[in-house]
């Protein structure tokens, strides 16, 4: 509770960020809310529909496809990303020669504009002249499957998502540095091996941070997967990579169904909240056991 009290005493420091958040995210979200309950194509004045848009989504098979796709991609990419970020953080937390360069390299993709790396991946994955295809051919594997099969394309999207682990690595490096060195020294003197130290010290000490990152990452993965889905696969093949945000985008800006798009956004928001709630529930339980 002292954390909350400290926040209440110093809340004004969050004001600049909070104002920006309100202007750029809160206000548009608020404006989208009435839109979700109306029919609006940008040409005619909006017409109130009540729950009509939501009912439509409920009966829209493509909505369920998109939701399923998004959840599948998140289910693959979030744990993988976290695992990879943890590995990198544990490799890179120690000050060594050249480690700064490697840390920057890990963070760089997160700082690159989405569109830039999406185009980059499009080139990498090109079956004719992309380096990935070339690499596969070197091992004698035919390089034409991954973007033409729905399930494979989804997996490719999830793998591309691993690209964005920079922030996780930074946070995990910081969290790892917070663990007192004396605990590691003691473990060494007590004869604990590397695996025991990881399992009994590093992992439990990082667990709260890891779970919090998982929550954040799951919520973010709905958004970050949008650009590659739009640029690399355009939702195809056979709607295999039609992700929820992409479907929202198509409805809003391609079919001019702004009301329906807003309703879908609302549904996406609800799903995100549900995911966070489930993870927070586990966070509570695990930290009570672990820490």
């Amino acid at each position, binding site marked *: 509770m002292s954390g909350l009290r400290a926040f209440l005493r110093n809340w004004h420091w969050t004001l600049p960020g909070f104002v920006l958040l309100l202007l750029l995210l809160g206000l548009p979200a608020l404006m989208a809310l009435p839109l979700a309950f109306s029919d609006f194509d940008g040409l005619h004045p909006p017409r109130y529909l009540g729950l009509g848009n939501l009912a439509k989504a409920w009966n829209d098979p493509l909505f369920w496809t998109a939701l399923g796709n998004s959840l599948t991609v998140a289910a693959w990419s979030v744990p993988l990303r976290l695992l990879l970020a943890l590995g990198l953080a544990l490799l890179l937390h120690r000050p060594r020669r050249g480690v700064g360069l490697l840390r920057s390299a890990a963070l760089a993709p997160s700082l690159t504009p989405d569109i830039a790396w999406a185009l980059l991946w499009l080139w990498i994955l090109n079956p004719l002249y992309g380096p990935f295809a070339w690499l596969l051919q070197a091992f004698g594997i035919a390089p034409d499957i991954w973007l033409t099969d729905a399930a494979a394309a989804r997996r490719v999207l999830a793998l591309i998502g691993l690209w964005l682990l920079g922030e996780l690595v930074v946070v995990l490096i910081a969290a790892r540095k917070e663990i*007192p060195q004396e*605990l590691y020294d*003691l473990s*060494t*003197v*007590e*004869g604990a091996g590397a695996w025991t130290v990881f399992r009994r010290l590093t992992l439990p*000490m990082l667990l709260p941070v890891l779970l919090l990152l998982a929550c954040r990452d799951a919520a973010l993965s709905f958004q970050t997967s949008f650009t590659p889905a739009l640029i690399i696969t355009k939702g195809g093949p056979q709607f295999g990579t039609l992700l929820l945000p992409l479907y929202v985008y198509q409805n809003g800006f391609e079919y001019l169904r702004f009301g329906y798009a807003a309703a879908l956004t609302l549904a996406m928001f609800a799903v995100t909240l549900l995911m966070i709630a489930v993870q927070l529930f586990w966070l509570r339980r695990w930290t009570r056991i*672990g820490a």
Partner: protein
Amino acid sequence: MLELQDLSVELDRRPVLRSLSLSVAPGERVVIAGPSGSGKSTLLRAVAGLAPVRSGEIRLDGRPVQALPPGQRDVAMMFQSYALFPHLSVLENLCFGLRARGMARRDAEDRARAAAHTLDLTPLLARRPRELSGGERQRVALTRALLREPKALLLDEPLSSLDTQLRVRARAEILKTHAGSRAAMLLVTHDQSEAMALADRLGVLHEGRLLQLAPPRTVYAEPANLFVARFLGQPAMNTLEVQLALDGGLWWGETLLSRRLVSPPAALGRRLVMGLRPEHLSLPGSRWGREEGPGAELQATVETVEPLGEQQIVWLNAGGQRLAARAEPELRVGRGVSLPLRLALTRACWFDPDSGEALAPASGAARA
């Protein structure tokens, strides 16, 4: 039996320990005291295997261990911060070392519970470290260190994170806990009262060199050199640059302190440093510091008086030099008063003014 022989340690190519030798018998407590930066922690870390040894040998019960990884040396270490795992209960903390070495959970817990029972830790077993007081944390850390029955127990500033009130009690706890153990205990501290209270033998470390290693009384009464003399004692030993005249008289500047020293510590005609503890300077009317035998008198002016309760420290000025004297709390001492200070010359320590090493009478002390 822990033996260090000609141990040298370098950190970042800077020598931290220089050719250090000492031994600690099973059940013995050796305390190494020294100012910060003297290499105390490095000494423990080298013995534990956490700091690389440049040359020399570390033996445990005759077996050289410096090539072994820390976990195979059979030493336990108690860190300054106690290094209790914050996410584990006291019981799990106690079991950590045994479990890490592959002991079954049930056996490890039985042993931990038994130890906790003898040391009155049972009510704490289910708690997390953050729910313990400083003193309790220290006891848990110590119990954990000894639970494995290591051959050597290393303690790094075990009391420094406790407040003054608790320290005296915690000192007794360490003695009590270690009393039942055969572990050779090596403790480092910068706190001299802690060092004196806990040591069977006391070593003074300075810039990586062990200057003296002897029972605490000996180190206090017969310091091997000026550094040791000034490091131990609160306030520090008074030191006067004196001259031994050719006729045997002892001169401090223009003042004749003694017509004839009974056993001159050095050749006649030499310059010397005379060291006298504050308790060996006696104020007129004081019952403290009165020694039989030859003494010297020195006119001095009282500068300040520090009443400490059980004693008072009187700071005096004699010919521009500050001197500290100890006196009983009842003695009335007026500031600014000039008085004849009596020096107990028989208790004086003598040092070479150039090397700082102790001369004749003090040389009986066991040298490191």
